[in-house]
């Protein structure tokens, strides 16, 4: 009964994460120091790059647990979840994006490529998670935050690290406890018409909770670096994605979110510092791929809808940080200034509306292609500020450019308001 009590306590306690061994930054080096050898290169001397002596034999490729084993149960459970994910509403079905992410993951995971299956989930926020049966979920929000393919590889490699080191299995037993109950009662919840019921709660649990201890996260960081370097990516890109995350977090006033994240992850500053340092020791002249163009090409056609998802989350301050980073990158500035305007239009505090107009004007002049709604948004703001003539002009321009727009009827209706 003590076991049961502990299990129940684990189930209900607020802190599912948290390694028991205490904080230990040497975990970063574990990946690099396997078999007692530290990998170090001397780039300046042009020395021959040595093959990485680490040993990833902890989990051999195409690992299938014995059906009678404890692990088999978890595998079976995850297979059920995976079957639901395949046809889930939130799955992002864009072929190019799925194929692209699968190819990056394959490259990063090397000989484990066949074990890994990617599912792209349409959602804001940067999140990726990997289950012990090789199922990886990646949120579309990650595509906005990775500045290049190497940074993407760092995150994928990090998740693969959890998988390869079987962190999942260690932690997942606790997660399965909780989600098993969810699945168990999912049936009842479904009967009550509660919309969130469904096995997706399981994956949400895996993703949101970050159910690994801090040391596991450190270890995964180390493996992420190794895997990406092994695949030829520049490891010095890895720390940068945490830099953006940190800046976003600092901008947000949502304290609860922040502390929940920190309960299960090392401080971003620590990760950035260590990753920067370690990157130097794994980098060779063969690890130089950054892949900015490739990622940019994939994201460009879908970026507007992904940014809209972030805006809908209504975390305006963090959103601005993300947008400013995208502006610094310089792709399709017209689209980005449009969203600067949209954010202010939706927030509508103080002089936001005036500022929104200024951004829409900037978008009209900036290089790139703004989304079709630019003139409509401008018209809307002008209308709200009482500048009816200007609004009419903007609406007319919108209708001229988009005569078949689904909302053309409504816009024409607005056009007919009397001038004030």
């Amino acid at each position, binding site marked *: 009964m003590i076991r049961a009590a502990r*299990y129940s306590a684990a189930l209900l306690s607020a802190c599912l994460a948290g390694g028991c061994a205490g904080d230990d930054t040497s975990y970063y080096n574990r990946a690099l120091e396997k078999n007692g050898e530290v990998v170090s290169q001397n780039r300046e001397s042009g020395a021959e790059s040595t093959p990485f002596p680490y040993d990833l034999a902890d989990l051999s490729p195409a690992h299938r647990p014995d059906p009678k084993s404890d692990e088999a149960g978890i*595998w079976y459970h995850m297979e059920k979840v995976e079957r639901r994910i395949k046809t889930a509403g939130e799955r992002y079905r864009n072929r190019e994006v799925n194929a692209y992410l699968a190819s990056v993951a394959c490259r990063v995971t090397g000989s484990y490529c066949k074990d890994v299956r990617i599912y792209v989930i349409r959602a804001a926020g940067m999140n990726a998670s990997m289950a012990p049966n090789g199922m990886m979920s990646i949120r579309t929000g990650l595509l906005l935050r990775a500045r290049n393919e190497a940074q993407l590889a760092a995150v994928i490699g990090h998740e693969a690290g959890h998988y390869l080191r079987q962190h999942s299995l260690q932690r997942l037993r606790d997660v399965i406890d909780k989600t*098993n109950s969810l699945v168990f009662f999912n049936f009842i919840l479904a009967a009550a018409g509660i919309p969130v019921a469904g096995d997706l709660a399981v994956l949400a649990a895996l993703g949101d909770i970050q159910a690994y201890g801090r040391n596991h996260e450190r270890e995964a960081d180390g493996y992420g670096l190794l895997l990406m370097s092994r695949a030829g990516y520049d490891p010095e890109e890895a720390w940068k994605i945490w830099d953006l995350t940190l800046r976003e977090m600092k901008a947000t006033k949502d304290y609860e979110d922040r502390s929940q994240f920190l309960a299960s992850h090392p401080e971003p500053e620590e990760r950035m510092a260590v990753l920067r340092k370690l990157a130097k020791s794994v980098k060779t002249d063969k690890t130089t791929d950054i892949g900015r163009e490739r990622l940019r090409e994939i994201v460009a056609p879908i970026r507007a809808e992904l940014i809209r998802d972030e805006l809908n989350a209504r975390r305006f301050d963090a959103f601005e940080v993300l947008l400013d980073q995208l502006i610094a990158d310089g792709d399709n500035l017209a689209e980005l200034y449009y969203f600067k305007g949209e954010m202010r239009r939706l927030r509508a505090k103080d002089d936001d509306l005036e500022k929104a107009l200024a951004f829409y004007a900037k978008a009209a002049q900036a290089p790139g292609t703004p989304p079709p709604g630019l003139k409509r948004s401008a018209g809307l703001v002008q209308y709200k500020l009482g500048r009816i003539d200007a609004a009419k002009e903007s609406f007319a321009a919108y209708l001229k450019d988009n005569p078949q727009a689904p909302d053309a009827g409504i816009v024409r209706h607005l056009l007919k308001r009397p001038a004030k």
Partner: protein
Amino acid sequence: MDGRGRIPGPAGAILAVAALLVLGACQTTAHHTRAKLPPEPEKRRIVLLPPDVELSILHAGGGNEINAEWTRLARQNLSANLAERFGRINARLVERKASAADFGEDAKEVQLLKLHEAVGASILIHQNQGSMLLPTKEGKFDWSLGPEARYLKRKYGADYALFVFMRDSYASSGRVAAMIFAAALGVGIRGGVQLGFSSLVDIETGEVVWFNHLARASGDLRTPEGAAETIDVLLASFPK
């Protein structure tokens, strides 16, 4: 769970309310619109859609997990028992091997399966005791997947589709649930909990011709005998 066996916090509330919503004082409640299947043998073909069955256990070592082996056994026992049972009433169990729908590739079938789940959940919540009864369905059992169900008829060459959904637990997590169910039912429960529903759909019209749900504190799907017993209960008043 504290020493007195109460589960603190919202999780406890979830379980309690869930139990109250679904479980009445009865253990099983069968509904049907048809007591008999058509007499012609060629109109008595039944395809068993993927049974959604899960068995779990708490090991002495702690931690609860789904037991894959038991679940596999349960499914085997279920299929074997059904085949034999249908044989006795001169109906035929149509084999359904792994289908494209299992991999999300038969979009139509996938939608029908999801729809059935939603209908099953609605029947559970609206057709049984409790405050969620629908006045328009008073005294009636009127549920259907609609004529698009015909797709399954064409695909499997069957007249009816049988859906089975079962959750079965033999140990602590079940005990956790059982403690709550016990409170709701006013019954002392020691063992595991068995929860499930089953429905028979006329896939020519989409009509749900038979539906049963089961919630009780006994039952063992791991052995052929146990499976037979459970199915006896689940398939009570199945059309002949």
